[in-house]
């Protein structure tokens, strides 16, 4: 190692510790009973109770944690798939067709990316409550379909990677527009689709404000809202009910799939991040 590279390596080591400690803490804490959680050293193991915690986690409140897990997977899966499809259709439409109002819509698209999403949540709640749709899965899924950034990203990707000649050749072969989209265009833009899908999946999985506002029935909660209600109960009852260890174990279980997914799929995030930053 060159001597001048020592300082950057040292700084990286410090950074790694900083980013890792909370994650290490939650892994260790999830193996502790509530009593040990309060009394043993925070960053070292006590009696190993992970299995007990997991069993208790799925038993608490009639197994509601399992439902939260399913809800989260359902909301984020359906939202991500839907948002990606809408973004792919619109991104292709904008990149490869010309029609009235297109220029205006493309400029507006840039503005839509800039609209703070939480400013939309409360008015959307009021509108959905007028049509009786709050406190349903749709109230979380439908607003999550809105992904101007995804549409923008796919428009850029199509413009660069789908040759006009290829689409025209398919037209000469008398393929319908929808068939061209499905069989020619979609396979060619798979990396962009994956990126948009992952971004919307993570943002819906992690979303808290939208489901917090929209849902009141605990059976419909995603993990983020469910776990915080448990935490609030634990806090109010000053730990008399055994819940803190379940909040910790439940949080770990909610985090692990996403951390694993993005470590495996890291390059897609990088391509998405760079497209967003460079264009």
């Amino acid at each position, binding site marked *: 190692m060159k001597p*001048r*590279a020592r300082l*950057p390596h040292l700084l*990286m080591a410090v950074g*790694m510790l900083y*980013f*890792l400690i*909370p994650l290490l*803490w939650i892994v260790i*804490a999830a193996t502790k009973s509530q009593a040990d959680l*309060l009394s043993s*050293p*925070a960053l070292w193991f006590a009696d190993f109770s992970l299995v007990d915690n997991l069993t208790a986690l799925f038993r608490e409140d009639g197994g509601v944690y399992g439902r939260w897990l399913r809800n989260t997977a359902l909301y984020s899966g359906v939202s991500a798939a839907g948002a990606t499809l*809408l973004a792919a259709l*619109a991104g292709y*439409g904008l990149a*490869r*067709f*010309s*029609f*009235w109002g297109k220029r205006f*819509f493309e400029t507006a698209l840039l*503005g*839509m990316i*800039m*609209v*703070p*999403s*939480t*400013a*939309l949540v*409360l*008015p*959307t709640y009021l509108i959905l409550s007028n049509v009786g749709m709050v406190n349903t899965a749709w109230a979380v899924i*439908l607003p999550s379909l*809105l992904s*101007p950034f995804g549409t923008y990203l796919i428009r850029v990707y199509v413009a660069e990677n789908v040759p*006009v000649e290829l689409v*025209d050749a398919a037209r000469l072969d008398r393929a319908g*527009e929808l068939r061209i989209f499905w069989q020619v265009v979609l396979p060619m833009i798979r990396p962009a689709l994956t990126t948009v899908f992952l971004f919307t999946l993570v943002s819906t*999985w*992690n979303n*808290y*404000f939208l489901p917090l*506002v929209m849902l009141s029935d605990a059976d419909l909660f995603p993990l983020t809202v469910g*776990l915080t209600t448990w*935490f609030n109960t634990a*806090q109010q009852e000053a730990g008399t009910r055994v819940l803190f260890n379940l*909040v*910790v174990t439940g*949080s770990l279980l909610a*985090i692990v799939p996403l951390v694993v997914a*993005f*470590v495996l799929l*890291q390059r897609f*995030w990088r391509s998405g*991040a*760079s497209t*967003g930053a*460079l264009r």
Partner: protein
Amino acid sequence: MTRRRLTDHPVAGILFVLPFFLVVVVFLVVPLGYAFWLSLSSKSLALGTRFTGFDNYVRAFTDPMLLDGFLRVVVFGAVQIPVMLGIALVGALALDAITTRFAVAFRLIAFMPYAVPAVLGALMWGFLYSRTFGPFADLPTVFGGAPVDFFSAGLLLASLGNIVTWAWTGYNMIVLYSALQGVPRELYEAALIDGASQIQLAWRIKVPAIKQAIALATVFTVIGTMQFFVEPYVMSRFAPQISAGYTPNLYAYNQAFAYSDFHYSATISFTLGFVVFVAAYAFVLVSRRRRGDS
């Protein structure tokens, strides 16, 4: 040629964009319009709902609680954003200069907090800060000092800033690192032949080359900061002094769900959205025009 081909199927183009357009109308245009419409009226027990024009806006701009919250977020951002983006930039430059396996591991680990839902991140840090659960509060007692109260008035904002920094530094680092990867390497060689040091290379060539990415990361961070909600909302369970109006977004939420004043809540939401939108959009348009493309 291309132009003619593109205009061949105007109806098909509209049909492709239509589903997305409908979602935009229903979940973006209509909510913004509805919030504005709601903000123009007020509801009271004595008079019911009536049109009050811009009264709600006058109230908002003279509401000390809202102004305090706004100021708090501005102060918070003025410190947290430069610190976070500074660390992210230095990290990205280091990643760009060093290609050891250690650097790859650092890149992965720094990005991990992004996958942690903000609310669970805030909860984790709440535990870590607390005297009963966490390792940090009692650390000074080892050396005979007094325990740290991370939720005290003096430290609360810094404690919140640390949570946000932890969650987003790695993400921004990857954005800037990806931008650095897109800079043509020939630029560096010329500078190195001229005898530039690595530090000079970084500040004189690499940083200017990714100015656009730095600017966009700043815009998105500012948008995020103005919406500050989850961390103070969760931390209010640990730190009861976090008021209903600690941040504007928290205030809007509490106006709606704690005080059932949807008109005033809509006013705050709309104002917040409008201010952020105009500032961010203007910034992006201006910086694009300066670059000389559309």
